[in-house]
């Protein structure tokens, strides 16, 4: 996975990579796409819920449970950490903590997205190099 992704993705991401095969050569990228589609929806829901007062901490916790679940499954360790903190603030009824953590979560999420986009671009480019090399050998 390399130093580029270290800290952002944990060993669960490597489990995803292990599942990629000839039958599903783009499996990891497809899972990542689903994750970002789903998490964008959740971020939007949480954003809206945080704008309403008083805060419904149960609803917020429920959204964040889903977010944490997806993030755990893809190996998004930094995002997962922020989700955990957010949920702790929900349980404590700490609105300011929720708002602050949510801003951090969005930053980590955006950074992860950029890094994964770059990662998949590099993968595609590497594969193209291999194909070109093989063609040159024929």
């Amino acid at each position, binding site marked *: 996975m390399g130093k580029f992704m270290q800290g952002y993705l944990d060993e669960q991401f490597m489990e995803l990579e292990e599942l990629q095969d000839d039958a599903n050569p783009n*499996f990891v990228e497809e899972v990542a796409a689903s*994750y970002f589609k789903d998490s964008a929806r959740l971020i939007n829901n949480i954003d809206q819920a945080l704008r309403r007062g008083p805060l419904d901490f149960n609803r917020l916790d429920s959204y964040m449970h889903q977010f944490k679940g997806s993030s755990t499954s893809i190996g998004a360790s930094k995002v997962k950490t922020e989700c955990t903190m957010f949920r702790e603030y929900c349980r404590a009824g700490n609105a300011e903590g929720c708002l602050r953590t949510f801003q951090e979560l969005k930053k980590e999420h955006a950074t992860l997205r950029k890094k994964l986009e770059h990662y998949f671009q590099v993968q595609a480019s590497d594969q193209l190099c291999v194909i070109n090399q093989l063609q040159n050998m024929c």
Partner: protein
Amino acid sequence: MAGEIPNLAESNLRALVVDDNLVNQMMHHKLLDRLGIQNDVVCNGQEAVDVHCSGRNYDLILMDMEMPIMNGIQATKRLREMGIESKIAGVTTRAEEEERKEFMEAGLNDFQEKPLTISKLVSILHNLDFCDQT
């Protein structure tokens, strides 16, 4: 990943993934595929019940706990009330002792904490006597 991954294609096992999260659905489906286990995917406990009412049956059900409409505890109880004897493994991120106990008592045969991996799935299959320990 240590150890060999068993291929259970010849066993003709059928599994049902019950999870409302799309990422988990994709992962669990692929994990089962990798082990040679045909599988269907549904989004909540109610769909799991409905699919059994339609006449389908499964050797193994991977049941998430927290789902909308009907959660994993309710679905497991309902399936057992219907006389469904499939092996049901609870798979959830909620692993506090009380919640785990409640889920097991609903009628599970096994339990694994998410995220599910090949090793954890093989462990489930071994615990439920679907394969020998590798």
